[in-house]
């Protein structure tokens, strides 16, 4: 029943799209004021999509196995929370969520843009409707979440257990708010280009939307990272895996756009650049969906999926890119009377430099992600691109990038010189010697790492000083940059000081080395509703007197029949102790991995700091 309502709401929603388009065109041509009916119709459409989504959620809660999606991804023994989160834990449901967010954003946009020009609002709505219609058809044609199966099965196939996790339950909605948020920026930019509406005021208005989707995208990536860290058991948080890269690329484009909009707010320059960035941000988000969903990418995260859907998204994507490029080339007028002079030392040129670096990072990641696909198509060679590629190409350019991040914000608009030269050089010397002290005793490449740590420390010191002097002035920017320096530093120290021991032990055995004794004391078995668990007691003993018992867990899920290992992590401010245990079929040995990961929590905290920079910037304006 719920499925039926869901499906028909979807169809009604699509019909409404056409009605909205009709009304908008009429209103665009004939009237001077914004027709209130359009707003109501958009709301009605949103209402239908929400109903449809609720219909799917209810089918999941009731374990209605006559619905194919529910049958494929749910099970009666699953806890309620994961029944609900299972709604968007699969392809069909997650696309419905995409659609929901698309509708939600355009509705909010119409509500919040009352002071803007009528034609601009309507045109934005029209472009957004093009995307919405595309997704409606995509969902109904290739991935209908409400397919009926008969005879009705009595039990579902269950959700992949590694998805049954709180972080991953909220990861997709938040990531999608970021991804899809860029759709409004895309539509609004196209509309503004058509009407030659791009101005300082427009920049101020669109900045809110850029900030919101940027914050959500950042949080979404953070959640995915945290999940990968504790659930996948390799103890890493970023693997340069294609699926991770496709979320990082829109993030980089969006961050660049954010900085570019700041220039546009002050001076009406770089308009073409802003348009290109808006288009690429959304295109990259779509690409992300395409690459993840089509199964083209060869990723360790890949879940089973269907190539036909990929083809549709690809065609749709090409249409959108074609449309936007067409508009860009035929409607966009560059102002000749505007002076394009950039003084080399000014805030705008430092932001421009930042943009170039960002674009370079983006290109590197893009090439690394899609090159294997091309190679496979061209000469059917199968390759994968690993972390060394990215590290080698990105790290050297991170150094000037970090320095520019420290000095850039101190410059003034239009024309500037560097003040407090002595102060800045003292900071440089301090951070240089500090980093030599840190790196000296480590077995890592001395030169590169010293310079890298110097640059990160430099940014750290400069931004910390800024807090003390300026207080809450310029807090948003400073906080975000400070967070970034903290992020880089924590990642570096995490890399330098991490240690790990991997060993195979039977119950009762002890691994002995000079520094540490790891004793596998016992195991305990428990039966829980949808899995049985084996909890190991492992005693860590080191000569410094530390004596700790960690309890990693193995979960054997009954439906589907999958074993997952749950790491036991003891976190404190300075380091994480991370242990996982694994059992190989028909063997007495347990595979045990013990890691000490310093500054893990600081990585998460620094990303939160970066986010809060964005939040502050959003709310400061309103106060």
């Amino acid at each position, binding site marked *: 029943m719920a499925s039926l309502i869901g499906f028909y709401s979807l169809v009604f929603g699509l019909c409404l799209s056409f009605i909205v388009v009709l009304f908008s065109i009429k209103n665009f041509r004939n009237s001077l004021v914004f027709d209130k009916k359009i707003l109501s119709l958009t709301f009605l459409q949103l209402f239908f999509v929400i109903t449809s989504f609720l219909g799917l959620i209810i089918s999941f809660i009731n374990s209605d196995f006559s619905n194919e999606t529910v049958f494929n991804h749910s099970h009666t023994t699953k806890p309620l929370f994961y029944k609900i989160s299972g709604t968007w834990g699969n392809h069909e449901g997650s696309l419905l969520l995409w659609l929901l967010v698309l509708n939600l954003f355009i509705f909010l946009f119409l509500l919040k843009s009352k002071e803007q020009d009528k034609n601009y609002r309507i045109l934005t709505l029209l472009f957004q409707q093009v995307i919405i219609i595309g997704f409606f058809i995509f969902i109904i044609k290739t991935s209908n979440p409400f397919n009926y199966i008969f005879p009705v099965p009595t039990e579902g196939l269950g959700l*992949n257990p590694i998805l049954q996790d709180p972080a991953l339950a909220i990861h997709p909605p938040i990531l999608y708010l970021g991804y899809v948020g860029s759709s409004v920026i895309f539509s609004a930019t196209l509309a503004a280009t058509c009407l030659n509406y791009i101005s300082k005021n427009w920049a101020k208005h669109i900045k809110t939307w850029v900030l919101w989707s940027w914050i959500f995208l950042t949080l979404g990536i953070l959640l995915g990272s945290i999940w990968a860290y504790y659930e996948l058991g390799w103890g890493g948080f970023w693997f340069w895996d294609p699926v991770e890269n496709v979320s990082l690329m829109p993030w980089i484009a969006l961050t660049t756009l954010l900085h570019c909009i700041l220039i546009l707010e002050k001076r009406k320059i770089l308009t073409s650049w802003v348009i290109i960035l808006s288009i690429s941000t959304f295109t990259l988000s779509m690409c992300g969906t395409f690459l993840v969903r089509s199964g083209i990418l*060869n990723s360790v995260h*890949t879940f*089973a999926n269907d190539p036909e859907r990929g083809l549709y998204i690809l065609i749709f994507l090409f249409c959108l890119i074609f449309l936007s490029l067409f508009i860009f080339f035929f409607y966009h007028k560059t102002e000749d009377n505007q002076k394009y002079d950039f003084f080399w030392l000014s805030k705008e040129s430092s932001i421009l430099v930042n943009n170039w670096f960002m674009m370079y990072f983006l290109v590197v990641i893009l090439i690394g992600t899609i090159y*294997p696909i091309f190679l496979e198509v061209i000469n059917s*060679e199968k390759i*994968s691109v690993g972390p060394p590629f990215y590290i080698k*190409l990105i790290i050297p350019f991170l150094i000037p990038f970090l320095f520019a991040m420290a000095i850039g914000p101190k410059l003034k608009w239009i024309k500037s010189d560097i003040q407090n030269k002595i102060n800045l050089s003292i900071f440089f010397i301090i951070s240089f010697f500090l980093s030599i002290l840190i790196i000296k005793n480590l077995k890592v490449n001395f030169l590169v790492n010293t310079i890298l740590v110097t640059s990160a420390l430099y940014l750290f010191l400069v931004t910390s000083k800024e807090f003390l002097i300026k207080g809450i002035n310029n807090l948003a920017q400073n906080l975000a940059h400070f967070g970034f320096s903290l992020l880089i530093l924590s990642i570096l120290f995490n890399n330098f000081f991490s240690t790990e021991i991997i060993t*195979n032990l039977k119950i009762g055995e002890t691994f002995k080395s000079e520094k540490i004794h790891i004793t596998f004391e016992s195991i305990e078995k428990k039966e829980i509703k949808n899995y049985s668990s084996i909890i190991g007691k492992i005693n860590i003993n080191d000569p410094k007197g530390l004596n700790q018992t960690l309890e990693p867990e193995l979960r054997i899920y009954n439906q589907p029949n999958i074993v997952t290992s749950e790491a036991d992590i003891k976190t404190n401010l300075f380091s994480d102790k991370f242990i996982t245990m694994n059992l190989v079929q028909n063997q007495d040995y347990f595979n045990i991995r013990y890691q000490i990961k310093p500054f893990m929590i600081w990585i998460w905290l620094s990303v939160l700091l970066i986010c809060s920079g964005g939040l502050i910037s959003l709310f400061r304006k309103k106060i």
Partner: protein
Amino acid sequence: MYGRKVKLRFFYIFIIFLILSLTIFLTLKSLEENVIYFQSPTDVKALAEIDKKKIRIGGMVKKKSILIKEKEVKFVVTDFKNEINVIYSGLIPNLFAEGKGVVAEGFLKDKSLFLATKILAKHDENYMPPEVKAALEEK
């Protein structure tokens, strides 16, 4: 003759073009050095000489071939045509099991022995690495 402004613009375009091509060239070059090729046991058998570079091999874990000791794990990867012995010490992913697909990364010692440095985790029991699937279909 062209005016000074036009000349300057040509100069800028030239510089940008130069930087762009240099970047792409360097990127592709370092890509070449850092990619990891995937090979099935049959591909390995067909190799003319043993490469020192890191590669990935994939196939099925042969039934009853897993042998675990304190420091290492030994098993046999097969594509049902040829097989190769693998020695590995490190983290074993959850879905590593006899009769299931596996992808291992590491170095070839000789044509019948592979020293693995990493076994890649899969997230889905039904999921088979595309390479393994293709390798199995080829036979």
